[in-house]
């Protein structure tokens, strides 16, 4: 793109707010229809999974879900023989907080712990990138067993280091070693599971258009289909089914869970220039491929 090459962000705020190289404007957290839980374009929680060298973590419960190849023996213990370990503190910063208070429908009071959100809890660790910090892990089956291991903190942003490991320059881009291919999107909602159908206002699927095959009507209003309508053909009823007026749950004109599990690709299809991609085309392509194969 000509424009991108003639405007080059220099300082940190400029880098943060200018379009990412190679990415569309909708990929910016500020412009995307995103949140972080789980997010629509990407699941931001995933950038923390590899923040400590040697282990892979799961934010929801601070659970160690894996160790990296070549990790030393002490680290290997974290995933050994069916025992589950949770990260409870890093560099003295707790990863959980105690919760006490009334319990619904019960005279009992609740005394428990809740996992903290990592973008806050781990923020103070970031200046220690490149250094070792003391991490404490608790055995899920035996809460008294605490393993203390020094782990190296990875750089969160893409950096250049000199021979001594000192940062000499930094870009406002998430470091590659924190997010391998597919990492950032792997926990997004999936059409072949319940996710798309589950959300009444289609928020989880908001990066997809939900008002499709739209045409201007003679009365000056627009007419089109709800993206989940079963019949989205020319001859079908072009009426947007709204959550408020028509009700989504159990509405027979909409694609059901079962329909999605069985054939989500055929039922949903790509939307190109605002319209459903014609099914025939894709079917034809499949047939051509099959013919070639049979030769």
């Amino acid at each position: 793109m000509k424009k991108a090459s003639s405007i080059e962000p220099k300082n940190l705020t400029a880098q943060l707010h200018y379009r990412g190289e190679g990415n569309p404007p909708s990929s910016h957290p500020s412009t995307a229809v995103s949140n972080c839980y789980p997010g629509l374009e990407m699941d931001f929680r995933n950038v923390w999974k590899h923040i400590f060298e040697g282990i892979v973590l799961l934010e929801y419960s601070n659970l160690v879900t894996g160790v990296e190849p070549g990790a030393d023996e002490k680290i290997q213990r974290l995933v050994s023989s069916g025992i589950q370990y949770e990260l409870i503190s890093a560099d003295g910063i707790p990863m959980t907080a105690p919760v006490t208070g009334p319990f619904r429908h019960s005279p009992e009071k609740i005394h428990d712990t809740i996992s903290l959100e990592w973008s806050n809890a781990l923020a103070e660790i970031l200046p220690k990138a490149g250094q070792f910090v003391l991490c404490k892990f608790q055995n899920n089956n035996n809460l008294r067993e605490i393993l203390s291991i020094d782990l190296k903190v990875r750089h969160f942003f893409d950096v250049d280091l000199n021979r001594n490991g000192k940062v000499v320059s930094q870009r406002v881009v998430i470091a590659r070693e924190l997010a391998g291919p597919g990492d950032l999107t792997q926990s997004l909602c999936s059409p072949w599971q319940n996710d798309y159908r589950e959300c009444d206002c289609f928020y989880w699927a908001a990066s997809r258009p939900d008002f499709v095959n739209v045409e201007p009507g003679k009365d000056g209003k627009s007419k089109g289909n709800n993206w989940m309508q079963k019949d989205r053909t020319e001859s079908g009823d072009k009426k947007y089914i709204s959550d408020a007026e028509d009700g989504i749950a159990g509405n027979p004109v909409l694609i059901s869970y079962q329909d999605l599990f069985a054939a989500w690709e055929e039922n949903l299809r790509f939307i190109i220039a605002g319209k459903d991609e014609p099914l025939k085309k894709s079917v034809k392509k499949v047939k051509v491929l099959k013919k070639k194969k049979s030769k």
Partner: protein
Amino acid sequence: MKPVNPSFHLFESKGQHILIPDGSRIYKISKNIHQKLEELLEKDDVIEIDRWLIENDLQSLGKINDQPVSDPPLTSISLAIAQKCNLGCSYCYAQEGEFGVKPKNMPLEKAIAAVDLLFAQNMGAHKMNIAFLGGEPLANREALQAVTRYAKERSEAESKRINFSITTNGTLLTEDDADFFKKYGFSVTVSLDGVGEIHDRLRPFKGGKGSYERIIRNVEPLLALQKNMQVSARVTVTPLNLCLKETLDELIRLGFHSVGFSPMLSSPGGNNEMDSVSLETMLENMIACGQEFEKNLVAGKRYPFSNMSTALKEIHRGTHRPYPCGAGAGYLGVSASGELAACHRFVEDKKGYFGNLEEGIDRERQQAWLTERHVHRQEPCKSCWARYLCGGGCHHEVINRGRPACDYIRGWLNYVLQAYIRILDQRPDFFYPA
């Protein structure tokens, strides 16, 4: 240099660049774009400028809106621990240390009450600052030391971090002070307005005798002890001490951790205030110091010119603010008698009165201050590209004299922006602390 357009500022440094004030964003731009923007400036068509910025993803992000800060936590206080001074500097905002009233010391119980207010109003902040100013704070050494110990003990008991700083004229410093400051990790700033006679002319003892030699003799043990504490020099620039480069070189040679300059823009009787001609000279000399800083940085040598290093780091981060400083927001001054002021300069001044230690912060007055002092309400700041880097200028100086130094501020910022691009290219590691 005039504020040609509030939407952007163009500058040249190894190619053409643009500063977008909103978010203090800096971009390198091609010659064609630069030419197009020059044309837009010529036409001065606000709608067309906005459209161009939007089309090129450089639009305003609304980083700073018209809303004033409300009910800010109190994270810093300064104590006018001694409202008296042994020097007789003609330009002193505190009128030779006494703020126009009877000289007095702050009683220890008032100082402790001020620290209690800080702990009560910090709203959970983990870092706090206590600054000792005056007058000459070491004229009330006993209370200064006692309240420091009290604040330190309280911070440790509550697992909070507290930083201490002192601005002193250096004449009363002793070796024991050095040990005390080291123990509590003070940032020490010594006011020095030049070398030898130049300093003596501006900062004499009340009897008229020069103070430079005494100060340097007193400061030497502190300079030797710098590790836990930092000892910096602050130079107030008047038409009588415009020889910045010589002053900077000598103070660095003496071993100060950093040296910074600040123009005298408003003094009680108008004595030694900078006029437009002396501000022009100051700008030239500041740039000469900046160029020396650049030369040393590239050669890997230390040259602690704090105006330059602070401005460069703020520009790199894209610092943008609706106020020039925290005065009246997260920072308040406390007078010897326990009145709260917008900052150390507004002690005993009704224009910046914010309540007292007994009744607490006057939130109504504070809110009125924060509304009125917002840079969007200031003229000519609203139409200036430098408004979010400058914040509108020192409240005390602006309220008392107006804004005589806008061209100087813009000229300095324009130079630092150019230097930023050069340093980013040659020494990018400068922007990443060890």
